[in-house]
C-alpha cells in the first residue's frame, strides 16, 4: 500500500447524501479480474449517460475537477454492500481522501485497507470544506495525517480524529501484507534455518 503522508490537491464537492456502493461502482463491473482499472467506472451512472457519453454536469467531468484527490460528500457515504470494489474504484480514480459527516461501517474500514483516508467531521466543518471545494482547481486543500489537520485554500485549519493504529498503518503504508513485511527479518531467519534443516523444500 502507498504511504499516506501529507496530501495537497484538488477537492471536489459532491453534496449528495447516502451515496451507496452501487452508485460508487455498479454491479456489472464486479466480474473483473482486477482491482485496478475500476476508476473509469467510478460513479458510472451519474458520470455517463446510457450511451457511455460523459455527463458534463457531473462534478468529476468538469475540467477543473478531473484531477480530484479529495472528495467532500454528504452524509452516510458508502452505504450498501460490502464490495471492496467501491474503495478500489475510488483509489483507482486517484482519490485518496473522502470527507463526510458519516460513513457506512464496512466501507469505512475497507478504505483503510486500500490507502484511502476517510474523515468524519461535524456538519458545519463539512459545509465549510464543501464551500472551499466549490472554488475549483485554484483552491487546493491540504490533508496532513501526521498532524491530523485539514488546511483550506484560505489557510483555515480544521482538526480531525483518526484511530491511532489505522493512522500508523496508513502513514507507513501498511496493510496486512505491509505489517507482515515488518517481520521480514523473522521470515528471513526462518528461511535461513530451513535452508540447512530442510534444504529439499
Amino acid at each position, binding site marked *: 500500500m502507498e504511504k499516506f503522508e501529507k496530501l495537497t490537491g484538488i477537492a471536489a464537492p459532491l453534496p449528495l447524501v447516502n451515496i451507496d456502493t452501487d452508485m460508487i461502482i455498479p454491479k456489472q463491473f464486479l466480474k473483473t479480474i482486477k482491482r485496478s482499472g475500476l476508476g473509469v467506472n467510478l460513479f458510472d451512472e451519474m458520470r455517463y449517460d446510457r450511451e457511455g457519453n460523459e455527463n458534463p454536469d457531473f462534478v468529476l467531468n468538469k475540467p477543473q475537477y478531473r484531477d480530484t484527490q479529495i472528495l467532500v460528500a454528504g452524509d452516510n457515504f458508502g452505504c450498501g454492500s460490502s464490495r471492496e470494489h467501491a474503495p478500489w474504484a475510488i483509489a483507482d480514480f486517484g482519490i485518496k481522501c473522502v470527507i463526510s459527516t458519516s460513513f457506512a461501517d464496512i466501507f469505512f474500514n475497507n478504505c483503510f485497507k486500500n490507502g484511502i483516508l476517510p474523515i468524519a467531521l461535524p456538519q458545519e466543518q463539512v459545509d465549510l470544506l464543501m464551500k472551499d471545494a466549490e472554488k475549483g482547481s485554484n483552491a487546493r486543500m491540504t490533508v496532513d495525517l501526521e498532524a491530523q489537520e485539514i488546511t483550506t485554500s484560505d489557510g483555515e485549519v480544521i482538526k480531525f480524529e483518526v484511530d491511532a493504529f489505522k493512522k500508523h498503518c496508513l502513514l507507513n503504508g501498511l496493510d496486512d*501484507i505491509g505489517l*507482515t513485511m515488518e517481520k521480514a527479518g523473522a521470515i528471513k531467519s*526462518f528461511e535461513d534455518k530451513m535452508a540447512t534443516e530442510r534444504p*529439499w523444500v
Partner: protein
Amino acid sequence: MTAPKTLYDKIWDAHVADQSEDGTCLLYIDRHLVHEVTSPQAFEGLRMAHRPVHAPDKTIAVPDHNVPTTPGRENPEQMTEDSRVQVAALDKNAKEFGINYYPVTDVRQGIVHIVGPEQGWTLPGMTVVCGDSHTATHGAFGALAHGIGTSEVEHVLATQTLIQKKSKNMKVEITGKLKPGVTPKDVTLAIIGATGTAGGTGYVIEYTGQVIRDMSMEGRMTVCNMAIEGGARAGLIAPDETTFEYVKGRPHAPKGAAWEQALAYWKTLYTDEGAHFDKVVTLKGEDIEPVVTWGTSPEDVLPISANVPAPEDFTGGKVDAAKRAIEYMGLEVGEKLTDIKIDAVFIGSCTNGRIEDLRAAAEVLKGRKLAPGVRGIVVPGSGLVKAQAEEEGLDKVFTDAGLEWRMAGCSMCLAMNPDQLAPEERCASTSNRNFEGRQGYKGRTHLMSPAMAAAAGVTGHLTDVRELMELEDA
C-alpha cells in the same frame, strides 16, 4: 522431555516463523498452488504495490477451473469471455512474476490438486496452500494443506507466510478392513455421514487406522480431499512407506543425499504415543457399505441399500433442509435408492480423477454399455493421467461403453466451463459437492465412487456395484 505431539502439532511447530502475544502466528508456507479463478486480484494487488512474488520457485500455477475439456481447446474461441480473460490473466501473471507454470497446452496440465502431488511439489511435512478449499487433498502426504481466500493468496505471494491461529486436533480412525466393492470414496463419504458437514469445524483431522494404512496414495488423497466437506480445514495422514514410494523419483522430489536427509525427517512425522486429541471418531471398516448421497449436502449419505428418508426422520433445522432437498432432487420419500434413475455419469474431479479411479470405473464398464438414454463423460485429472490411461487402453473401454473421453480439468465438478447438467438432469458423479446448482442450474447430483458411478451408468439407475461384480464372478 517434551510433551507428546500430534502430527499436526509437529508440522505446525516446524513452520512458525513468528508468534504474537495473542497466539497469532506467522506460518511459513512451503508450497503455494495457484489457479486462474481466485488469483487475478491478488496478482493485481502485487502490481499496484510494486511487490514481487517472494518465493516464485515455491509457487506453482495451473489453469483448471474453467478450461474446456474438449479437443482443440487451445483455441480460446472455445471459452466464454469470462473464462478466456481469467486464463489469459494467469498466463500473463505466471510469466511476469516468474512462477512455475503448466499452461493448457502442457501435457502436465490438470487439476491443481492432482498436478501438485504428481510433479512432486507436494511432499511430507510441508505447508501447502491454494486459493481453493480442496487443497485438503495434499494432506494425504502428511502435509498441512488448506484453502485460502484471495486476500490471503496475495499475502502468501508477497510474504510466503500466512497469519494463522492454530486449530484443534481431531482423530478419525478407521479400523479393520474394507469389504470388497467398498472404496476410499465410500470411506470419506461415510465419515461425513457420521460426523456431519460441521463435525470437523475448527479442527484439523488426522485419519488413522488399518484401513487408511492399507490404502494407496490415490485413495488417501480421495479421503483427505473431502475433509473440507466434513467441515475441517485440513485432513492429514501420517507418511509411511506407501507415501515414500509414491514420492520417490517425482520431478520435484529430492534426489540423492537430499532424499536420504528428507526421508530421515519424514520418518519423524507421526503422532506421538499419548498425544492429545480434542475429538476422536472411530469407524469400523467392516461396517462401511458402498454409499451414495441422496440430498444436496455431502452429509446426506446413505448405504446404497437404503431408501430415501423422510424429513421427519431428522431433527432441528435439518427437517426443512431435507424437505427442500427431496423436492430439489425430485425424489419420493421411502423410494428405494436403487430405483432412482439417472441421466448422466461424471467421472473425474480432484476427488476421483486419478488413474486408480479411472481403472476402477473401467473395470465395471469393460464389455458393457451405458444404459439407453444415459450420457457420460470421463475427465482425467491431469494430462499425465490421461496419457497413462490411454497407454492402458482405458480410453477405449470408456468410449466403447459410450462415454466421452475428455481432456484434463475441473469440468462438470463445478460447471464453470461448458460441461454442465441441464435443469433436472440427474447425475451419478464422482465429484465432492452436491449443492444445488453445483453441476449446472437445477442439476441433480448424487455423489459416489467411480465404480458405483460406472455401475449406475450401466443399469441406468443407482446400483450396488457389488451386484455387477458378482455377475462377473459367476
